[in-house]
């Protein structure tokens, strides 16, 4: 498993936070999600055998016409 810290752009309200949180929670390979609206950040626990950390900024919720973007700050094995 890996712990991934994200910088998240584009969140303006609690709804944004929940939208991102729900999307990530339901994504294969993402085990736990903790999003901070105040700090524009997120902490994920992922199963790296099911999802590559570099895929995360390119998920639909952070791409194309979505209002949100994310960047991986760092990640470590746990």
């Amino acid at each position, binding site marked *: 498993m890996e712990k991934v810290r994200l910088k998240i752009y*584009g969140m303006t309200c609690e709804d944004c936070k929940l939208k991102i949180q729900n999307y990530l929670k339901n994504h294969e390979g993402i085990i736990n999600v903790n999003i901070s609206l105040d700090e524009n950040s997120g902490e994920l626990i992922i199963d790296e055998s099911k999802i590559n950390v570099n895929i995360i900024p390119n998920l639909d919720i952070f791409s194309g016409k979505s209002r949100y973007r994310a960047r991986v700050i760092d990640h470590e094995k746990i």
Partner: protein
Amino acid sequence: MKKYDLIILGGGSAGFSAALRAVEFGAKVLIIEENVIGGTCVNRGCIPSKYLLYASEMAGTNNMKNIKGIEVKTSFNIKKIMQQKKSIIEKLRKEKYENLLEFYKNIDYISGKGKFVEHGIKVNDKVYTADKYIIATGSSTSLPDLKLKGLKLFDVDDVLNIKKIPESIGIIGGGYIALETAEILSNFGSKVTIILRGERILRKLLDPDISQAIEDYLQNKGIKIIRNAKLSNIYKNNKKTVELIRNNETQTLSFDEILIATGRKPNIDLDLEKMSIDFNENGIIFDDNLRTTNPDVYVAGDVTNKKMLVTVAAKQGTIAADNALFGKNTTINYDLVPYAIYINPQISGVGLTENEAKKRNIKYDVRTLNNSILPKANTMNMTYGLVKMLIDENENIIGFHGFAPYIAEYVTEATIAIKFRLKPSDLIDTVHPYPTMSESIKLLAQSFYKDVTKLSCCAE
């Protein structure tokens, strides 16, 4: 001290494009610009040069020779022309740049020369830091390695701010700036001589047949072209004199003014080493994602020393912001960037030339069409020039280039054809408006399969 998500060095098209992408998703951005806001395009490039090309075309009588029975006598006041140019620049600079700073509250702007320090950028004696940085400092005229002893030569900025049209001008260089300047000054009445180091104009950009057609047109217009000339000296006597070596012989030519248009170089006097950003004689080193050797620093615009076009600059700005801030790994396909040079007729194209296809060992087939067979060109009696199209082994269109009236307006059709891997048959099957210059794209496509000089209007 306020910490930013992104600091951008340079407030031109690349810098603003990056800033706009960043603030679209709530990032906090600082732009630092040394010169006037807006960069080269609006202040010292596309906008003033295109205005002067149009103004000079209106002022000159050269281009009305095509219609018989019309006699035009023009006169012009260069001071008034320059005043109008200034107000057009000011209007566009305000609408496209200054107003954006008021509208986008997440963009801060500082006027001053920014340089890297160990963990940030110092400007006006203050240090600013950010998570990521984009260098978008543009380019400036590259001068030849000659001792000029205080002799003032023209660069493109001097032409764009000209106060008096010189009786004669020697233009050193055969690129797009040389050509557009030659057109402007020739239209305004200067005797223009283009001095080339190589054999032909636009040597790096175009195939020889298109260069030849352009040279024929320029010479017909009274512009002299000198080839294979090595510049050995420039000095002042009663005029300004260039000393050239051609075929081992020295030749001197005197002009009222001399324009240096031998290229542009990236602006990288930024103390790059302070943040471990590597560079060499060609400029900053970066990868396909526009990332420098410091993973927190990206580049965009002319400073990349790639195709120096505002379209590329803006695209690179967006991509640099996406990659720097938003974890993307986007790249640019430079083959899909059309170029345009706005002499009249225009020069434009996209994709591979024959020269480039050969260099890459790509097997191709090519067709060339003289504009004289186009009904639209005939209705304007502007039948000079040519267009050409390249296809690869799979019959996918891979290149379109030409010298033709208004070609920059319809090169986009070829760009889309190349981008979406269309074949000539796709274009033939598409009804084109008639009579238009853009019909040449359909006729080129048809010419891969039949003799288009033996077709009635619009026939397939």
